[in-house]
Every structure is written in structure tokens, then in C-alpha cells.
């Protein structure tokens, strides 16, 4: 069918876009989790940062600042033509918390992935979301060889609020990841019904 110019320009649907963050320590399975449910191979976005590494002394010129590339990967799930969910893996290094802020603004909620062999790696993420009153669930990624702590032990070790869901998961398994994400959305709904979220932490 040949369409006139005006018809060809028919506005495409503009979906509602939502995002969920995936945080946790290095190598805990963030990218794997995103890839397990994303309809696209996880994509990478980068941001260039100029860091003041140490105090700049005038005579040393440009040396005082370094440029760092910070990568965030993300995936996409088209739930309906007009409803798209993005998953963002947060940069692993805590010192880039300000990029987390940018990601966290307007996020529906978050998954904190934990590996029971090194639970302390996710402390920073738990702390971050607690302070900013962003609803999160803890996903305990069940690597082989890791003893399966019951969820309750993980909750205690992380000193979590009783309302925060803790779920055992396998970041490689689509069904398992779907469950984790459903849990995040449900928790976000319950959270919204409870005490008001504060604005910007």
C-alpha cells in the first residue's frame, strides 16, 4: 500500500518505559541475570568521567585529572507494545555511586544479587538502596559449591528489614529471574502502599 507522506508519518506508539536496577559485587552474576531475560543481548553504555585523582597542583598541569570509562550494561523486555522494562546492571565500583544516583532516579526498584561465599560484597548496594528508600529484593545467586544458606540466614547476616524479600535464584535461569523481577514489582507496590518514599535520598 502506498501511503501519503502524512500517513507514513503516523506517530508510532510511545511506550511507557520502566527500569529495574541490578546491583551487587563483582562477578556476582549481574550481567548473566540481565541476559537471562532480556530480548536483546545485554548492551553496554559507557560514560566518560573526568576524575580529580589527587589535588591538582598548578605546575603539574593536566596530570591531576584522569579520565575513566564506566560501563553499565542493560537489557530490554518488551512486555507489551506500549510497556517496556529495562534492566540496568550498576557499575561494580562503589566510588561511582553518583552514576547509581542517575540510574536510580525513577527506578521501579532493584535487585541486589548476593553470593553467599562473599556476602559482604553486597553490603554497599544494600546500604545504598536502604538509604534512598528504593524498594529492593535480595537475590541469593546459587552458585554450585556454595552452601545453600536458608534465606533467613542471609537476611540476618545482612541485617535486612523484615519486609525486604530474600529469594534464592539462579541468574542463568530465565524462569528464576522472572520470579525475582515479579518479586521486585510486588515489593515496590507494597512499599508504595506503606510509608511514603522520600524524594531524593
Amino acid at each position, binding site marked *: 500500500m502506498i501511503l501519503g507522506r502524512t500517513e507514513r508519518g503516523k506517530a508510532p506508539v510511545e511506550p*511507557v518505559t520502566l527500569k529495574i536496577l541490578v546491583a551487587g559485587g563483582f562477578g556476582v552474576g549481574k550481567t548473566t541475570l540481565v541476559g537471562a531475560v532480556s530480548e536483546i543481548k545485554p548492551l553496554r553504555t559507557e560514560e566518560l568521567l573526568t576524575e580529580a585523582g589527587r589535588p591538582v597542583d598548578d605546575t603539574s598541569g593536566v596530570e591531576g585529572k584522569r579520565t575513566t570509562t564506566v560501563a553499565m550494561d542493560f537489557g530490554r523486555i518488551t512486555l507489551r507494545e506500549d510497556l517496556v522494562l529495562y534492566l540496568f546492571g550498576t557499575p561494580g565500583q562503589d566510588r561511582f555511586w553518583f552514576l547509581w544516583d542517575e540510574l536510580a532516579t*525513577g527506578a521501579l526498584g532493584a535487585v541486589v544479587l548476593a553470593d553467599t561465599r562473599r556476602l559482604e560484597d553486597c553490603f554497599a548496594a544494600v546500604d545504598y538502596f536502604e538509604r534512598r528508600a528504593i524498594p529492593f529484593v535480595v537475590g541469593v545467586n546459587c552458585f554450585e559449591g556454595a552452601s545453600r544458606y536458608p534465606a533467613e540466614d542471609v537476611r540476618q547476616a545482612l541485617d535486612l528489614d523484615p519486609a525486604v524479600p530474600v529469594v534464592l535464584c539462579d541468574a542463568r535461569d530465565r524462569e528464576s529471574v522472572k520470579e525475582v523481577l*515479579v518479586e521486585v514489582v510486588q515489593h515496590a507496590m507494597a512499599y508504595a502502599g506503606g510509608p511514603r518514599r522520600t524524594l531524593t535520598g
Partner: protein
Amino acid sequence: MSGDGQGTPHWFDDEAGPVVRPYAMTRGRTTSPGQHRLDLIALVVAERYAEDPEADNSLSPEHVDIVGLCRDAPQSVAELAAGLDLPIGVVRVLIGDLVEDELVRVTRPVPPAELPDESILRDVISGLRAL
């Protein structure tokens, strides 16, 4: 391009430091005037009459690419950055130029600190379950 000739161009952020190479594309600008920070999931939609952005020779090839990518379907800022292999900050500035030139517009995602409608959240849950 627009932005020139109206006041002082905003060349650098205060602490931008040395210009990073990809930012040469934005002539060193790291922010775009009149542009709030675009969310990574904000969608960029080509305006209908943005049929032939190449005809506008004030546009860089990267500007043209963005319009091209958005023409078929709205694209998120994150997808554009990944698709063009450019840092997010650069893509934001380029999108800002295109918005000023009215070649694209940007849809607002759900306002920060406001949770989407409960009905949307229910739809997300059933959508996830149905995957």
C-alpha cells in the same frame, strides 16, 4: 547550529578538565542549554517532518544517525548510546541539539520519585509472568 550566536556557548562544565576526544563531536560541550538531564530510559521520537535530516548541513553524521534510528521506532537514550557506540553524555548533548532543532522530541519517563500507576505495575507483573 542553534545555540551559536545566542549568548555564550557553554563550552565546558566547570570541572570538565581536558576535553575528552569523543566530546570533540559536541564541540566540548558536556551539557546542553535548556535541557534537563535526560533519563537513560527517556524515549527519543523523530518528528514527522524530520524526513531528511541530511539536508540540514549544520548536522553532524552522528546527529543524522540518531534521527535515522528513531524514525522507525522510539529509542531510549541508553539504546542510542549503545547503538552508536558513544558515551551517554555525548549522546545527551546531541539529542539536546536535535530537540532544539525540532527534529526529535523526548518523552518523559515516569517522573522521578513517583511510582507508576498501580495498574501499570500490575501489567508489568502479568507481562513478566507471561514471558
